[in-house]
């Protein structure tokens, strides 16, 4: 129970910070909308809806990257991470709290992005939304751990996309499969498997990322 209380407190801290400073979420919203507009000009006028659905996944992944690169900014600049590591709670709670707040930001960005996509390009079904939800969980889990890793390196924000994109390729395969194929259940199952596997690895290994 203590563990869940710690996680809740950490996630609430991030959401409250965002509510007061409004650093990340407006940037993510604006970014995802501009990307959708860019897609309209990228696609030839007679291209199919399927191509637009594929590009939506590009928008989701890059919007997530934008949010993730700021995820540990406050912790690093103000030295908060040392305080959190010294706090008498399990270190994996730091990861879980941060992943939950990242997930919340991503979900809020998509609450705007998906209707905008439906308005601009049309055609969003139930399997696609399920795919987006499952993909968000995987992106938040893996991305949060990699963001902590990148924050510890000299290259910082530059490193995060390099670390994240190869690991995001299975998410994209599953998400695109769930949104365009006639058999989405297989791809949704695959996304669920990915989420479970990587969430366990991240949960178990986060301690080693923030401590020496």
């Amino acid at each position, binding site marked *: 129970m203590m563990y869940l209380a710690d996680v809740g407190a950490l996630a609430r801290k991030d959401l409250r910070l965002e509510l007061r400073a409004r650093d990340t979420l407006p940037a993510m919203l604006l970014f995802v909308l501009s990307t959708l507009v860019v897609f309209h000009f990228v696609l030839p006028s007679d291209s199919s809806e399927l191509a637009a659905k594929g590009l939506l996944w590009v928008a989701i992944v890059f919007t997530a990257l934008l949010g993730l690169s700021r995820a540990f900014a406050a912790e690093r600049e103000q030295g908060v991470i040392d305080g959190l590591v010294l706090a008498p709670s399990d270190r994996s709670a730091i990861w879980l709290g941060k992943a939950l707040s990242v997930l919340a930001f991503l979900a809020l960005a998509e609450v705007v992005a998906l209707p905008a996509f439906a308005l601009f390009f049309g055609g969003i079904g139930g399997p696609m939304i399920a795919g987006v939800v499952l993909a968000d969980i995987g992106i938040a889990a893996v991305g949060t751990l990699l963001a902590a*890793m990148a924050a510890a390196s000299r290259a910082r924000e530059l490193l995060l996309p*390099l*670390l994240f994109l*190869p690991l995001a390729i299975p998410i994209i395969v599953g998400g695109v499969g769930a949104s365009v194929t006639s058999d989405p259940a297989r791809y949704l199952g695959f996304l669920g498997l*990915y989420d479970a596997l990587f969430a366990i690895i991240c949960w178990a290994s986060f301690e080693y*990322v923030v401590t020496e």
Partner: protein
Amino acid sequence: MSTWLRNNRLAALAALAFALITASIALVFFYAPVDSDGLNQKIFYFHVGIALTAYACFAWGGWKALRVLWKGDDSADLESYVAIHQGVIFGALTLVTGSIWARYRWGHWWEWHEDQLVLFLVLFLFYAAYFMLRFSVPAGPRRANLSAVYALFGVALVPVSILAIRRHGPNMAGSQFFTFCVSLAAMLTLAATLYHVELAGKRIDVRLRELREALR
């Protein structure tokens, strides 16, 4: 004989690798039958052997990474790094040989339908990022931990990618399978030799740096 072997393990391993590679080349060209794809199919023996060797290197690097995190084993960090370095070299060779094969089979240098090639491209990108991570963190226990965690991600990424980019196994006749096994053994021995050579070099490097620090 046995004391010589014990003192010159690396030389013996290198000799074995050389003998096996010679044997596999001879078997590939003079023993294995030419099948319906024609002569260009021969590169398959090297391509698949190299690919499996790359997997073995990544798995070995992942195992050593687990030792770093689990047991706090300091020397395992270097071993994990060297194994992954060898894996990336063999992975690049897989891409090159696969590309050559695709060129003669389908007429293009790149073939998105060839699952093994796509898989190795993803793994190549992943492990290239491993080096970026490693070289942007100052040496020390922090770097060992970060590299080890990322290497463990790689071990999970391999089966997940295989699931995502479905591949089907080749079917081989008996003599083809024997040739394949010899060439796989040759590649594995070669990788083991290169692993030990690089590890010895890197260890000397570390030792030299320590001595320099001590003299200062």
